[in-house]
C-alpha cells in the first residue's frame, strides 16, 4: 500500500461492502475487455522516501550547477540573486496546493497576490492592464502576436532578427497554426535595421512588429522611433522585454508600445533548466478585452469590504469555448507569487541598484576582455544591458571548452544561428558575478594558454 493513500485493507473491505461489490475490479467492469490491461511492466518498482531522495540526488549530482560554476551564460535565462524569503513564501502549502481561484471566498490570498502582481507589471511596463501571467516569455510573445492580428484584422507578423531565436521559433509555430504570415526584419549594428523596417512596413499589411529590448544581443532599442514608424503603417508595436531590466530601462508604455510581453524568470525564479518561470503580457485599455488569460479585479463583498475576483471571464475558454481569445487556463501562478515577493523585497530602489551593478559589472567585464586584445565589441557605442556580443579571436567552442575546464560557464555561441557574427560570443554579466569571477574569466578567456 502506497504512503499516499490512507485506506487500510479494512477500510477497503467496508467501502466495497457499502457499495455492494465484491472487488475493486468490479467497479471497472465498464471497461471493455479488449482494452483492459494488467500492470505496467516497464515502470520501475516503488521506492521508499529515502530511496526517492537517493535516486534524485544521484541524477542531480550528475549535473554541474551554477552554484559551482560561475555562469556568464544568459540568452534568455539569467543567474540573478533570489532572497531566501521568496522560496520560504512560495513553499507554503496555502499557496502551493490550491487550485485556480474560482471560489473567491476561499482564495483571497491568491487573488490579492495576482492583483498586486498585475499592478507591479503595469508599473514596470508603463501599461494600463496586465493579465495574471502566461507560460513563458516566448509563448507570451506569440499570444501577443495573435492578439495584434485579431485587433488589426491583419495577418502578418514582423519581428527583428535580434529577437531571441527560441521566441522566434515559438512565433513561427503559432503563426503557422493560426494561419498568420510572418517576416524577419534584419538587424544592423545590433538593432533593428530602420531602412529594412520601412521596406517591410511599406506594404501596409503588417499587424505588428515584435521588437525585443534588451534584444537577444543585449542591445537597447529606440522604442519611440520604432513606435512612430510602426504606427505610421497602421500596425501595433509589441515590445518584448524583461521585468528586472525595466527597473533601469524606460517603461515601453511611455515610449509608445501597444503590447508589452516577456519573460519573468529574472524576478525571483531560479534558472531550473529553463522552467518553470512565467511570461507576462500587458496592454492598454483598448485591447483589454482581447487579452488572453486570467485577469483579477477588485470589487467589494456583500458587506462592502474590499475583495478580489477573477473577472472579464467572458473572454475565456470555459465560457466562450471556440470563440475564446485564447485557450489558456492554468498559467504560472506560483511563479508570479515569487515575482511579487521578490519585487516587494527589492522595491524601486533595489531594482535600480541591481540594474546599476549589472551595468557596472558588464562594462567592467567587457572593458577587461577588450583590453586582453582577444575580443572586440560587435556593436560599439550601442547601449546594452546585462548582455553584449563580443567577437572572439578564436572559435567560441574552443573558448567555452577552456572556460569549462577552468570551472566557468562561458557565453552563448552565436555563430550557428547568426553566421554574420563570426566567433560571436554573447556574454551575460549579472549582479551575481563578482569582480573575482570576472577577473578569472578574463584570465582564462583572455590568456594565451
Amino acid at each position, binding site marked *: 500500500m502506497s504512503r499516499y493513500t490512507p485506506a487500510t485493507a479494512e477500510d477497503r473491505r467496508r467501502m466495497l461492502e457499502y457499495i455492494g461489490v465484491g472487488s475493486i475490479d468490479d467497479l471497472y467492469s465498464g471497461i471493455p475487455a479488449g482494452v483492459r490491461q494488467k500492470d505496467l511492466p516497464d515502470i520501475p518498482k516503488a521506492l521508499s522516501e529515502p530511496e526517492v531522495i537517493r535516486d534524485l540526488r544521484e541524477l542531480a549530482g550528475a549535473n554541474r550547477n551554477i552554484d559551482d560554476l560561475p555562469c556568464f551564460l544568459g540568452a534568455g535565462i539569467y543567474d540573478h540573486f533570489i532572497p531566501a524569503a521568496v522560496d520560504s513564501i512560495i513553499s507554503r502549502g496555502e499557496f502551493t496546493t490550491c487550485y485556480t481561484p474560482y471560489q473567491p471566498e476561499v482564495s483571497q490570498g491568491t487573488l490579492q497576490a495576482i492583483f498586486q502582481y498585475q499592478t507591479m507589471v503595469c508599473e514596470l511596463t508603463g501599461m494600463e492592464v496586465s493579465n495574471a501571467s502566461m507560460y513563458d516569455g516566448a509563448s507570451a510573445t506569440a499570444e501577443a502576436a495573435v492578439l495584434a492580428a485579431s485587433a488589426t484584422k491583419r495577418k502578418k507578423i514582423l519581428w527583428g532578427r535580434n529577437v531571441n531565436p527560441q521566441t522566434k521559433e515559438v512565433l513561427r509555430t503559432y503563426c503557422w497554426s493560426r494561419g498568420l504570415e510572418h517576416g524577419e526584419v534584419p538587424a544592423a549594428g545590433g538593432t533593428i535595421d530602420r531602412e529594412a523596417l520601412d521596406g517591410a512596413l511599406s506594404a501596409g499589411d503588417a499587424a505588428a512588429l515584435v521588437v525585443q529590448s534588451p534584444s537577444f544581443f543585449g542591445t537597447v532599442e529606440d522604442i519611440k522611433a520604432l513606435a512612430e514608424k510602426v504606427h505610421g503603417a497602421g500596425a501595433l508595436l509589441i515590445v518584448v522585454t524583461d521585468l528586472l531590466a525595466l527597473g533601469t530601462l524606460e517603461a515601453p508604455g511611455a515610449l509608445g508600445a501597444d503590447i508589452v510581453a516577456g519573460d519573468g524568470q529574472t524576478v525571483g525564479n531560479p534558472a531550473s533548466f529553463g522552467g518553470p518561470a512565467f511570461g507576462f503580457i500587458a496592454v492598454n485599455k483598448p485591447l483589454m*478585452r482581447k487579452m488572453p488569460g486570467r485577469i483579477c479585479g477588485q470589487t467589494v463583498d456583500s458587506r462592502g469590504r474590499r475583495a478580489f475576483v477573477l473577472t472579464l471571464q*467572458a*473572454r475565456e475558454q470555459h*465560457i*466562450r469555448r471556440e*470563440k475564446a481569445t485564447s485557450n489558456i487556463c492554468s498559467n504560472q501562478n506560483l511563479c508570479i507569487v515569487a515575482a511579487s515577493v521578490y519585487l516587494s523585497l527589492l522595491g524601486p530602489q533595489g531594482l535600480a541598484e541591481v540594474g546599476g551593478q549589472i551595468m557596472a559589472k558588464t562594462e567592467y567585464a567587457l572593458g577587461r576582455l577588450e583590453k586582453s586584445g582577444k575580443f572586440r565589441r560587435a556593436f560599439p557605442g550601442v547601449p546594452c544591458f546585462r548582455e553584449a556580443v563580443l567577437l572572439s579571436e578564436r572559435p567560441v567552442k574552443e573558448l567555452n571548452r577552456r572556460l569549462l575546464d577552468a570551472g566557468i560557464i562561458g557565453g552563448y555561441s552565436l555563430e550557428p544561428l547568426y553566421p554574420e557574427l563570426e566567433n560571436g560570443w554573447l556574454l551575460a554579466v549579472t549582479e551575481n558575478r563578482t569582480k573575482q569571477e570576472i577577473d578569472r574569466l578574463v584570465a582564462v578567456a583572455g590568456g594565451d594558454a
Partner: protein
Amino acid sequence: MAKIPQDLRYTKDHEWIRMEDGVGVVGITDYAQHAMGDVVYVEFPEKGRKVRAGEDFAVVESVKGANDVFSPVSGTVLEVNDTLEESPELLNQDAYANWLVRLEVADPGELDSLLDHAAYAALLEELEAENG
C-alpha cells in the same frame, strides 16, 4: 412574464427590430436580458460592416457568460449605441428602450420572415413550459 411590445419584429434568438424612417433599429428582448442576468459589457460591430441575416455581429456579456447577438436581417451597420459602453446595465433596465445597432436594411422583404408579437409570445410560452 417578459415584456413583448406589439410593434416590433422578433427572431428565435431573442433579438428585436423596428423600422424607423427606413432604418432598422436592433436590440435584444426583455426575455434575453433576463435570461443573461446582469449585463456587464457590450461588444459592438464596426460601423460600415456588412452583415447577413442570422450572422452574429455583437456580443452581450453578463457575469455568467457571453451571448452572441445575431442580425435579424441583412444590411450595413450605421450606428451603435455608445451609451451602453458606459452603462451596460441599461439593457437590464429596459431592453427595448436601449437598442444596440442601427442598420441600413438591404432587403425590407426579409422583415416579413421574422416573428411577430404573437408568434414570439408563443415561442416564449413554449420555452417556459420546457424549463418548468
